[in-house]
């Protein structure tokens, strides 16, 4: 009779449970991310080779893990822009070749892969990153190696690196216009709900400062762990607080659970509108239109924006990836970032990092959202702010837009009430 493992003898069971718990804890800890890339190595000489007919660039997006849901769409947009530029003759008569890497939703992996792209693949620039944790992990890598990252997602601001071009919105191009819009429509009290990491915490610090200066009452501020799907208590509290509006900085799958709970307890956009900053066309499908119709979102771009550049962008994207696909703000910002890089290289007549940095200020591109111009001071771009309403076809339609592009102000120097906000690390 073979001896079989049996867990019911006290010690083995406990040891097992403990090891299972240890593995789970390790997974959780890894998922929370840590700051990586503490490179003390001397800045390496770039190994970029521009003697051939091609030039390599990196596409660094999460193709696996929890962020893959969003970042794969950004990768698609990067490929589309590169194909367009190549079909048009390339950059400085060289065809662009993409070296793709998977950031795996882990900040440490992003840092490692960035290092690999720069040192081994000798890329001229890297496009990608999504979470602020991934950007902050990559920042020292790009600074130490003196290389370039184009980061395409709206973020919490309070950062400006010479080695990063930020083509998504900073706070004064998204959150502050959203607050202005709410204040304009008569909102006097807000309830804040967000995922528990750097972006929502910083965003809510800004919202609190804004609210204090503008006489808006904050009735509650709640955070859930990233990926959490349990919203029973929070929605009850939101319901009880009876604010004029909810400001939602949740990220990823949590939005699905939140909006399902919200509509199931009978809350509607008419009673208490939810202003979201992380819900784009792609996310609406997963949440279910019936649960989110009429709610608001703040972005710089929607698929429905009316412009010739956008018609061409949407048409080209659907032709490449299928008619059922939608385009969203981060995709558009990523698409713009590749074109902005190409335009800067053309202007600089060089792929060298210092030449690109020197030539970047004032470079513009006629993007789907409108004209975007690189600000040479802080490496952000000017963007048009738009508030969109989610319609029953799952798309967002602009209900308000800023008069022309807003100049980027990542440190909110132009706002007196923001004087006390500090740079978060």
């Amino acid at each position: 009779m073979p001896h079989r493992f049996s867990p019911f003898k006290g010690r083995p069971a406990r040891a097992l449970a403990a090891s299972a718990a240890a593995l789970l804890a390790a997974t959780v800890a890894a998922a929370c991310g840590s700051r990586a890339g503490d490179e003390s190595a001397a800045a390496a000489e770039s190994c970029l080779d521009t003697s051939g007919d091609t030039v390599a660039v990196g596409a660094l997006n999460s193709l696996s893990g929890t962020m893959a849901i969003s970042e794969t769409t950004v990768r698609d947009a990067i490929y589309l822009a590169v194909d367009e530029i190549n079909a048009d003759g390339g950059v400085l008569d060289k065809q662009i070749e993409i070296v793709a890497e998977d950031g795996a939703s882990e900040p440490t992996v992003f840092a490692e892969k960035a290092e690999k792209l720069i040192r081994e693949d000798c890329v001229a620039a890297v496009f990608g990153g999504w979470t602020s944790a991934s950007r902050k992990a990559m920042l020292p890598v790009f600074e130490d190696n003196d290389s370039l990252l184009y980061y395409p997602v709206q973020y919490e601001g309070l950062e400006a690196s010479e080695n990063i071009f930020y083509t998504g919105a900073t706070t004064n191009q998204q959150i502050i216009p959203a607050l202005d819009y709410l204040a304009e429509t008569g909102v006097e009290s807000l309830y804040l709900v967000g995922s528990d990491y750097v972006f929502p915490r910083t965003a809510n610090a800004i919202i609190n400062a804004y609210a204090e200066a503008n006489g808006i009452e904050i009735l509650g501020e709640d955070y859930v762990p990233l990926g959490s799907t349990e919203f029973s208590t929070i929605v009850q509290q939101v319901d009880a607080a009876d604010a004029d509006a909810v400001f939602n900085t949740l990220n990823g799958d949590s939005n699905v659970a939140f909006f399902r709970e919200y509509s199931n307890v009978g809350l509607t956009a008419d009673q208490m509108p939810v202003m979201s900053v992380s819900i784009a066309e792609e996310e609406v499908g997963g949440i279910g239109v019936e649960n989110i119709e009429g709610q608001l979102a703040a972005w710089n771009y929607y698929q429905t924006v009316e412009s010739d550049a956008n018609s061409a962008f949407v048409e080209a994207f659907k032709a490449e990836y299928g008619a059922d696909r939608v385009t969203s703000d981060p995709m558009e910002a990523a698409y713009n970032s590749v074109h902005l890089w190409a335009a800067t290289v053309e202007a600089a007549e060089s792929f060298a990092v210092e030449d690109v940095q020197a030539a970047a200020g004032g470079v513009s591109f006629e993007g789907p959202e409108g004209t975007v111009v690189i600000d040479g001071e802080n490496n952000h771009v000017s963007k048009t702010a738009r508030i969109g309403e989610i319609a029953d076809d799952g798309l967002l339609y602009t209900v308000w837009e800023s008069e022309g592009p807003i100049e980027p102000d990542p440190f909110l120097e132009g706002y007196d009430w923001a004087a006390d906000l500090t740079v978060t690390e």
Partner: protein
Amino acid sequence: MDVIVGPLFTGLSTGSILLLAALGLSLTFGQMGVINMAHGEFIMAGTYTAYLTQQLVGDAGVSLLIALPFGFAVGGAMGLILEALLIRHLYHRPLDTLLATFGVGLILQQVARDIFGAPAVNVTVPEALRGGVDILGTTVPKTRLFIMALAVVAVVAVTLVLRFTPAGRRIRAVVGNRDLAETAGISSRRVDAGTFFIGSGLAGVAGVALTLIGSTSPTTGQSYLVDAFLVVVAGGLGRIKGAVVAAVALGALQAVFETYSTASLAKVGVFVVIVVFLQLRPQGLFTLRTRSLA
């Protein structure tokens, strides 16, 4: 008085969700001692079963009813295959099982991503389950009432099967004393396969039900796995009763903490309570006395 009813109901509701996710695990981990890290992915398979059924059937209400048994079959079949190909060969090596099934979980996630795409898909909630019911001043979503009812049905069904069917008796016999059961003519290999089928099938059912409140994406299962293990460990290995009490207790604890702090702090609080509890009572809430020899 919704200050009391709110958290109380939320506790029950969260508890029933935890219970649904953990019930299958309490069979495979609790009864068999197999640490199946792919359990979450069986839940995920259930959510996609609900999605596919809805795509084929159309009507959300009918498809939900069809998807429940279908989810059981899909989860169970995946469990059988995993048991036959992998876990069976690793019964003496629990740590290898843990790592191997963790890998299988990652593979299943990637498979789901390749088939259905990375973005979450939408499973429409049936008309009949939309909106809420007013209970003592608190609006209770009907979807949560449905999940509570389903959890009760699942627990009763599992209990009845274990207690009153020949197959259930064989499972209990093998859990109680494997060698003695074998000498009595019970094929423990077939019992293992059967137990794993039921446990994995329950994960599939949980997946179908969880589409009502959560998202359907390749990583859905991950959000339930840690909590499911906590429920089984805190409840005591091998006891369905333990899983029930632990799930409701953890749910209530989470709800109460959350009412007076934030959700992420509440999570920390729950973990602290569990760690302290397991220090004082490592065997969990309920223990199974067996006559098997060490």
